[in-house]
């Protein structure tokens, strides 16, 4: 199919982009990688009045260090994330999850920021961002910038804290050093499919003890979810299959996953427990 007609703007700076969004009328869509937006427009499930294509806003691309943080430009493609040396050093969990997104051709176009703003709870990056306590740097018209923590960024199904007229500029995540182990444990029916459930786990070990744990759950609710109970149970615990299994048993606590063609809610909750055990086991180096 062919998308419905739309007005098209192709800014090259953030300021131009914000102006184009402001001038775009009632229904503006921001085209980042387009790998979700264009299919939806082809099926005419979306027919925006204006499309603001930010693929040429080069200032939004790339990964840099800022003290203890990695700063990932919203328009950095999945491919560039996977191949970035800083990500390889400090962002292994991001790399592992990004490698599972779609396929190589889609990863050449799809962007880190686009996937987060799309806020599909079945998408792989939101749970990772949440687990890492990412901070979302958002630009508004007139150059104003605000920072939103991940816990507040994902508001609902396909809904974020971005207001009309705003643009996600970059995402800050803490560097995880070599004392961290990570694992993105994804469960789907075929390689291309969205996650039925996935678990993003990062675990910091000191000797035989877990000192920090970050667990994010994909597709276990209308937004990504943090498995706080598991994290609490892990911190301070000795690294063993028993303690990990016991902690992971709490992975589904408080979740209200949906039922769809691939899984009913109770099965998703079961998977969350199994996959959390597997993710933490791997992340902890067991």
């Amino acid at each position: 199919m062919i998308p419905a007609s739309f007005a098209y703007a192709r800014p090259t700076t953030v300021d131009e982009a914000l102006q184009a969004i402001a001038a775009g009328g009632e229904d503006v869509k921001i085209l980042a990688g387009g790998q979700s937006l264009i299919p939806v427009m082809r099926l005419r499930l979306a027919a925006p009045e204006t499309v603001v294509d930010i693929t040429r806003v080069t200032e939004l691309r790339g990964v840099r260090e800022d003290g203890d943080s990695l700063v990932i430009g919203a328009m950095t493609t999945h491919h560039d994330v996977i191949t970035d040396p800083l990500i390889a050093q400090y962002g292994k969990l991001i790399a592992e999850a990004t490698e599972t997104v779609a396929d190589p051709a889609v990863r050449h176009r799809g962007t880190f920021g686009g996937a987060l703003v799309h806020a599909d709870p079945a998408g792989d990056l939101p749970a990772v961002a949440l687990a890492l306590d990412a901070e979302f740097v958002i630009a508004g018209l007139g150059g104003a910038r605000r920072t939103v923590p991940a816990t507040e960024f994902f508001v609902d199904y396909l809904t974020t804290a971005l207001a009309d007229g705003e643009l996600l500029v970059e995402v800050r995540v803490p560097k995880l050093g070599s004392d961290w182990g990570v694992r993105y444990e994804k469960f789907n029916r075929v390689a291309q499919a969205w996650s039925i459930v996935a678990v993003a786990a990062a675990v910091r070990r000191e000797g035989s003890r877990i000192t920090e744990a970050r667990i994010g759950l994909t597709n276990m609710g209308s937004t990504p979810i943090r498995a706080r109970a598991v994290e609490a149970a892990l911190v301070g615990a000795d690294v063993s299959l028993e303690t990990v299994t016991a902690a992971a048993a709490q992975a589904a606590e408080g979740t209200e996953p949906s039922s769809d063609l691939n899984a009913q809610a109770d099965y998703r909750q079961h998977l969350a427990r199994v996959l959390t055990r597997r993710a933490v086991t791997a992340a902890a180096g067991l």
Partner: protein
Amino acid sequence: MTLTEDPSTATPDAPAKEVGSARLRKEDARLITGKTTWTDNMVLPGMLYMSVLRSPIAHATISNLDVSAAKDRPNVVAVYTGQDFKDEQGSIPCAWPVTPDMVNPGHPSIAVDSVNHVGEAVAIVVARSRTAAVDAVEAIDVDYEPLPVVLDMEEAVKEGSALVHDHTESNTSYHFVFDAGEAGTGTDTDAAFDAAEVVVSRRFVQQRLIPAFMEPRSVVVGVTGDNYTLWSATQIPHILRVMAALTTGIPEHKLRVIAPDVGGGFGGKLQVNPEEILALLIARRLGKPIKWTETRSESLMTAHHGRDQVQFIDVAADREGNVKGLRVRLLADMGAYLRLITPGVPALGAFMFPGIYKFPAYRFECDGVFTNKVPTDAYRGAGRPEATFAIERIMDELAVELSMDPMELRRKNWINAEEFPFTTVAGLSYDSGDYEQATQAALELLGYDELRAEQARRRESGDPVQLGIGISTFTEMCGLAPSRVLGSLSFGAGGWEQASIRMLPTGKVEVVTGSTPHGQGHETAWSQIVADELGVPFDDVEVLHGDTAVSARGLDTYGSRSLVVGGTAVVKAAEKVVAKARKVAAHLLEASEDDLEFSGGRFSVKGTPGAGLAIQEIALAIFASHDYPEGIEPSIDAEAAFDPTNFSFPHGTHLCAMEVDTDTGFVKIRKYACVDDIGNIVNPIIVEGQMHGGLAQGISQALYEEAIYDADGNLTTGTFVDYLVPSAMDLPHFDTGNTTHAAPDNPLGAKGVGEAGCIASTPAVVNAALDAVRHLGVKDILMPMTPERVWRAIHQGGDGGARAAEGSNAYGGARTTESGIEEAAK
């Protein structure tokens, strides 16, 4: 691991043979460079594009249809509704009235005043561009008055069910029976069951599948005066020509149908599509060329689906494991209408339920049932995968009941090599084979004993990942088909095939075949055959097909028939060419015909070394025709039609080793090995490719694919996001092999290979998963075996049961019961 000698090896006395050699395909050059012609590539001067408005409601009357706004859109040439064509569109033809009293409600190409499935055409915009047509469709206003939606076959056949078609008495289209006792091919079935020591009954579900050929359907109609040319991405240009002429009233001789390169079909393009008829009607009305190309979501929603049966099967046996009787009752979902061979698909399967086993008694019954869904029709195997699944699944169930090894049970009952030809309880004469030989080879290929040992170790240790091995020892009927047999089954056409050979003056050869390929490689294989028969170079042969103006007679490609029937027609035509050339050669060489030998493309005179003529020289001589025998025509070209006397019966043993993660229900094929006997092989790489592709589709039925409708009759698996066609990551490596027992009923000795992998593999995969977890109490798992279903079957019993989504009708609550057949017998 072919167990025959390589026929391609040259000996001092005979030239190297093309047949049997691994020739690389001629077709590839244009396909790997992007230089081929797909129908959608065609552009004609003044061409208009049509876009179809489709019903979003499964069952409704159309109370208002306003196209005026669409007509006013820019670049729109015309907008049509069913009212515009109601007097000339006729009905999409159904060529297979399986019973004399079959109810065919008629199938309009475009709905006139009611719709019966989501996706049915309601209005058509014709515009100067694809974009303009698509845009204008959105401006059409339709009001529907919804009617009750009929989706579940088991509900649909109950007294008092809502009707799909209000002018029919029930939702049953036909009741088809084959009773071996009555046919004289077996004993009384009821008596066999009454006397049986053991009866095992099961209810199996063949889920609805979508052929999902990669090239979406596409149609272009060109108009020159009162002559029409229909290009279509079809498997059946010849059948389409006849049917389109009959349906539209365009005289057959004024209609030319061309199938250019066609991007896969798998039965899905064995159809007379509503859009083909509509494009012709519109081209006739406007006098302008018309193009229609579907989108993928349109294709999944409206191109015919496959399978969709509920099978009640029971088998009678004695305690020693000797089978005594087989009873099958099917509910087969027709969908809302009968398309080309919709009702015949289950009937074709009727004769294959006994499989390779010596059942003394057999009875088959099938109800064709209307529902408010897109019609079903042929999909790779068409009736035979369903039958093979049921028999191969229940043989495992019987083995469990008897505490026997499943292979031992099969051995005890299968036809032995020395018993061929063997007339089965269904009345078929199986031609040749050796099930034991194929089985032994497959067991070795799999590494059966080692995997069984590993299975025991995993079971012993309570490994969360359990291992199972599934068996499928199958046969199929191919080479469709002897025309008289098709006639006896009320099929609307014969099963012959046509070929002609044109000897060009420069020594090149044109072969015209009526068997139209869509990816199989006919051009290569037919060239190999002709190269051997005429002794001409492989590269000097051009194979022409798919255009009714070039290939006037043909019955096209389906049912693994091309090589067996169409290839044989090529052999027969070549024999005629040689016979005609022999007369000319004898004349020119001043020798008696009887003294001529033909070998390696050359006629030579026995006992006179050096004297001879190449067939190419004869072609040139007869082109000049200055000197040729009295009383013959000045041509050595020839034409032949071939009608087989029997089906062919490929067979094989397929083994699947499956890992089941009992924690998550995820299943993974560890190893897949199969050994197939498809008769003589013309081209081993093409054969292997056909096997791989068939395996992929059969495995995919077991694991991934299902067309799911919601409670309102909407297809929820309407894109490739939800209809899961496996990628390279989702399929295993296949280990394939062959045994060779030539088919006795055609000179090539070929049996057919296109459907084997698809027919055989599905039960092997399901049997493997069950073998892995049966000790945990699992008796059945519905297809596709989603992780959730496998997990539920292990941890909650039953067959994995209900599908998740609220409102889905995907046989969600169904449970396999031991008493299924009683329920079915009603």
